[in-house]
Structure formats: structure tokens, C-alpha cells
């Protein structure tokens, strides 16, 4: 990534809000979020359900538009862009990885990975080359012609990662990427993420699992639509061993972030 923007920040949000009107009531899903994420950072976003982390994720990914505030992506204010420009940003700047993979069921792995390139207007020959290369990065070079139902969960998610990477995006945006995977496969996906990060990829990941979040350099915690912590510390004993079975041995620490809040001690905003 070359850096011609004035700061090293790739994402800056200022007082970002999102309101949903439900009948007579207005729900403040985001109640003024200020966040700065630097280039090459690996950030996890955590928070109990209803904290606004998914809404925030959708804002960052330009899938949804904010009700107020500012969002600067790669030096460009995003809140004023029209539909086509937003589509271009989703195409070029952001690589999505979803919890449910979201692969086209009837298309081969190769064709699935080609999808963002189709919307980028890349020629067919070039699409094949780039998609095959991206599948090579996630070690699926030998599964290119397989359809999603012929692949394991981990393989499907790796196809999705290849698809997210194929257009060389500024940010890899992952929404609960291990939510549908068992722990071994989760580790496998986390390893892929770590390798990508080492090669300079900026990664933002929403998760509610501590041991997954622990792979990130930094954890941003949202509570009630606001940032409650910009750099939460993960209690060290949770990470050793890095496994969800820890829950049983350390009942004093609330592991399920949906149960209580604030879930983690950290500096107040």
C-alpha cells in the first residue's frame, strides 16, 4: 500500500451515528462513534449483541449509510458519496468476509473469486489469472473447479477470503469469520488472517469470541452504540490455552459478551 494520504490512518470516523425508527421509537444503533484505524493494523471489534458492532461494520464497509457524523476512508469522506461511488469503494477498497461465506452455490470456486473482478471491469483472461492466484494464496489452487457444496466449511471460508483479496483491497473486513466453523478450522482461518496481516494487509474483524479477537493487535469495544474501549486488554489467563474450553475453568470472568456489560475493563472514552 502506498501512502499518499496525510496521515497513516486508513479509517477515521467522527461522531458517527445511525438511528433506526421503529414505530414511535427511535433506536440509536450508533450514538456517536469516534474511531481511528491505521494502515496495516489488525483490529478486532467486540461488543455484546445490540452494541452496534454489526451496524458499525456495515458503515465501514459502505453497505449502509450513517445518519450523521463523518467517515473518512483512505482520505476520502464517504458520507457524501452517491450509489455508484459507494459501489466502487466496496469493489476496490473493501474485501468482505462473511460469517455464512455467501458463496454463489452453483458457481465454481474460481468463478466465485472472480466476482469482484467482474464488477471491476477486468477482462476474462485477467480475471482467471488473478482469481487463480488468489486461490493459490489461500492454498486452494487444486480446488478451483469445485463448487461450494463440494468443499468443507474451512475451504469455503478460504474461497471467500480469496474473493475478498482478489481486487487488492485496502481493508479486509470480516464479520464473525469463524462463527460457522469448528475450533480447528477457526484456527486455520486465523492463521490465514495472520499471514495476510504479516504481508501488510489491514484487517478489521467483528467477533464476540475472545480467543478469536486475541489474534488481533488491538480490540475496539462497543457498548450501547459507543466506543467503550479503544484498546482492550484481554485477560491473559483466557488466552492460555487459547480455546473456548477455558469458560468452564474460569467461571468468574464473563466470557459471553452478551450477558453483561461492560464486558472488559478498559479506559473510558
Amino acid at each position, binding site marked *: 500500500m502506498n501512502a499518499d494520504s496525510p496521515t497513516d490512518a486508513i479509517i477515521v470516523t467522527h461522531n458517527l451515528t445511525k438511528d433506526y425508527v421503529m414505530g414511535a421509537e427511535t433506536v440509536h444503533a450508533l450514538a456517536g462513534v469516534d474511531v481511528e484505524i491505521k494502515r496495516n493494523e489488525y483490529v478486532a471489534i467486540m461488543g455484546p449483541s445490540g452494541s452496534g458492532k454489526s451496524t458499525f461494520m456495515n458503515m465501514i464497509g459502505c453497505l449502509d449509510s450513517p445518519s450523521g457524523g463523518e467517515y473518512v476512508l483512505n482520505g476520502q469522506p464517504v458520507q457524501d458519496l452517491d450509489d455508484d461511488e459507494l*459501489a466502487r469503494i466496496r469493489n476496490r477498497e473493501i474485501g468482505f468476509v462473511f460469517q455464512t461465506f455467501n458463496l454463489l452455490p452453483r458457481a465454481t470456486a474460481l468463478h466465485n473469486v472472480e466476482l469482484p473482478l467482474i464488477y471491476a471491469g477486468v477482462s476474462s483472461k485477467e480475471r482467471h489469472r488473478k482469481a487463480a492466484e488468489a486461490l493459490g494464496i489461500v492454498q486452494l489452487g487444486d480446488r478451483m473447479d469445485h463448487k461450494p457444496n463440494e468443499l468443507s466449511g474451512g475451504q469455503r471460508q478460504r474461497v471467500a477470503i480469496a474473493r475478498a483479496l482478489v481486487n487488492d483491497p485496502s481493508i479486509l473486513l470480516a464479520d464473525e469469520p469463524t462463527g460457522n466453523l469448528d475450533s480447528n478450522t477457526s484456527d486455520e482461518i486465523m492463521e490465514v488472517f495472520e499471514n495476510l496481516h504479516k504481508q501488510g494487509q489491514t484487517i478489521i474483524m467483528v467477533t464476540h469470541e475472545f480467543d478469536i479477537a486475541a489474534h488481533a493487535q488491538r480490540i475496539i469495544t462497543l457498548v450501547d452504540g459507543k466506543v467503550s474501549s479503544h484498546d482492550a486488554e484481554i485477560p491473559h489467563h483466557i488466552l492460555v490455552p487459547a480455546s473456548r474450553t477455558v469458560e468452564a475453568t474460569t467461571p468468574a470472568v464473563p466470557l459471553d459478551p452478551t450477558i453483561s456489560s461492560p464486558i472488559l475493563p478498559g479506559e473510558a472514552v
Partner: protein
Amino acid sequence: MSKRRIGGGMGFFTTITEGIAVAFDSLRSNKVRSGLTILGVTIGVFVVMVMAAMITGINKSFSEVMASNGITTFYMAHFDFTSMNISGPGDEGEDDFMKNEPLDPRWTRDIMRLPEIESASAFADLSGNGYEASVGGDRLEISLYAVGADYLEIDAGDIISGRWFTASEGDRRSAVAIVDSAAAYDLFHGRDPIGRDVRIGRRGSGESFKIIGVYRKPDNLFAGMQSHWVWVPFSTADKVLPVWDRMISFIIRPEPDVPLDRAMDAVSARMRRIRGLAPGEANDFAFMTQDQMMDLWGKLTGVLFIVMVGLSSVGLLVGGVGVIGIMMISVTERTREIGLRKSMGARRRDIMWQFLVEASTLTLVGGSTGLIVGGLLVWGVNAWTPLPATVPAWAIIAALGASILTGIGFGLYPASRAAGLEPVDALRHE
């Protein structure tokens, strides 16, 4: 990096190929549903194809007849047969048919004496009047034509064997007849008919005629419609057979270089004198020119054309409503896919085009099916019936164009529904 190139976007060709691939996928996975949807389009296109082929084929024959008759040759009758042909009984033409005095064959001599006129001869189409030809015990229903000696020139067919009758044979009211090869075969079972006698009349009665020739009508529509033709001199028929005088018409050919208008004016003036019409009184006879016959035919095909457009519109409409239905289902079923595509950078117009291409692929498949089935039927008509039929290129283009337009027109609403979905909502759709 902050200002990357805006634009690029999805290539047009890729849009088409992607859309077609998705459409065939959906066709394959929902065979019955898709098949029923496109059936209306198939029927619409089928109707257009077959009717266009018939009209074109008949038109072609018609022009051939016109060309063989000569452009300035015209017809005269005691009533306006253009109005009778187009409208039903009870109209003016029909009234005149019974009310006006019939034409007298002798008047042809007066007309021929006009300097503008080369020839005029009376004829009567007696086909359908129940005439039979019999040889020994064999009886055969025939299409009898009482014509002048110059009929051969006007009809421009071929003498297969023997000869046509001469003008003097006509004047002498000789009992001679010319038959077509079908009549010759069915009457004489392969024996040479020339010089043999045949009785011509109604219900066993009749007069004896000597066969002097076998004639083949020019290859056109009218030749194909009937067979077992027999031609006899008009003067002979007028004497020995009951020729209903209201069936008599004149065929008149102007001198070369005389314009049609002038020739008709001259004949009209002479006829008014013969009929004793006072100035200001309306003509009690009427002409029909080749142009008028063409016009008449044009009117007829115009009606056919409207019927054709109407029928195929109904088919396309039914197909179109089906397209709305199937595309709405497709949009709902694939809401998540739309969300995914949007999150991968698809613009509104990319999604719009994807669904429009899918809809028009469906209707195009329907249209092509109709085209093939219609084409086979036209081929069959040509091969097994005397009716001519030609599929004109415009009909193929129009049919396929209409199918595609149906897809686009009726796909517009579902496609814009799909394109307008918010990515975040579409992705969350269960």
C-alpha cells in the same frame, strides 16, 4: 491511493454473458415453471411466423399472376366486385349484382372497335356451379371456365399437348374443350385425351365436346387452389350450356402505349351509350384494374396483419405477465445473492442489467422455440399442400425482437426492485 480511478465498472459483454449464464441456470433448475412462463411468448411468435409466411407466400403468387396478365389489362362487370369481395351480402355491391343489367357478350365487339382498345373478350367463371365432365360411366366434377380465344395469352400458362382453340372456332361456336392434366388423367386413365369426346353439363345431362388440348395453368396460388380445370369457348358455352348471364365479365386489354385511364374512360363512355345512361346517372357497371386488385388484396392482408398482431400480442402479454411473476420469484429467492453482489461492488445498473438480461433470455428462448415450431409448420405446408409459404426475414427479426422487448419490458419492474435493494438489507434476508 486516496483518489483512485472512478469508473471502470462491469463490461457490457460480461453483463450479457453473466446474465445469460444465470438465466440458463434458472431455466434448468425450474424447467416446468420456466417452460410455462415462456409458452405465451412461444405461441405469440409461432402465430406471427406462420401468418407472415402465409401472407408473404400468397403475395408472391399474386404478384406473379399480376405480372403474367399484363399491367394495363383490366376487368369489367355489371357490378362493383371490389365492394362485393370486401363486404358481405346486403351491401351495395350485392344489390347491384342482382339489380343491374348483366353484360352482353356481344358488346365486346363495340368495345374492341374503340381505337384505345386492343382486345376485349367475355368470360365466365363457372367453377362451383356444379358442372361435371363424363366419359362413358366416369363422372368428374370440374372447374369450368368459358373464355375467349385470347385467354391463353392473358393467362400465360403452357400447352402440354394439342392446342388452344382458335378465334374462328370461337366464332363458329365449335364444341371443343381444353382440359388440365389432372382432368385428363382422371377421365382417360393415362390414354391420350386429344381428339376424344367428353360430355360437359350438369347432373348427367350435357353436350359433347371434343378435347383438343391439355393445358397447364401458370404455377401460382390460383392454380393450386383447384384442379380438374376445363376451358371451353365462351360463345359455345353461351349457346349450349346454361351460362348464368350474371357470371359474365369482360377482360379488356388497351392498345400498347395507351394509358389505363384513357382506355377506361373510352370504354366507360361507350358503355354509358350502350346502357343508355343519362348524363349525371351513375354507372351500372364497374371496372377492376390490377392496381385495385392489389389494393383489395392489400386490404385483406391488412386485416390479416391486424389479427396476427393482435393474436401475437396476447401471447406476448401472457408471456410478459409470466415473466413478471417468475422474475419476482427469482429476485426474492436471490435477495442474498443481490446483497452479496452489491457488497462486491455491483452498481444498481449492473444488477438491473443482470435481471433484464435474464428476463430477455427467458423470452428469447420462448421466441426461438416458437420460431422453430413455426418454421417446421411452414416447411410442412410448403411440402404437403399447394399453398405457398415463405418465411420473410423481417418476420424472424420482428419475432425475436418482440421476444427480447417483452423480456425487457416486463422484466423492468422486477429488475428495478432488485437493483433498488439496500445491500445491508439484502444480505440479511433469510
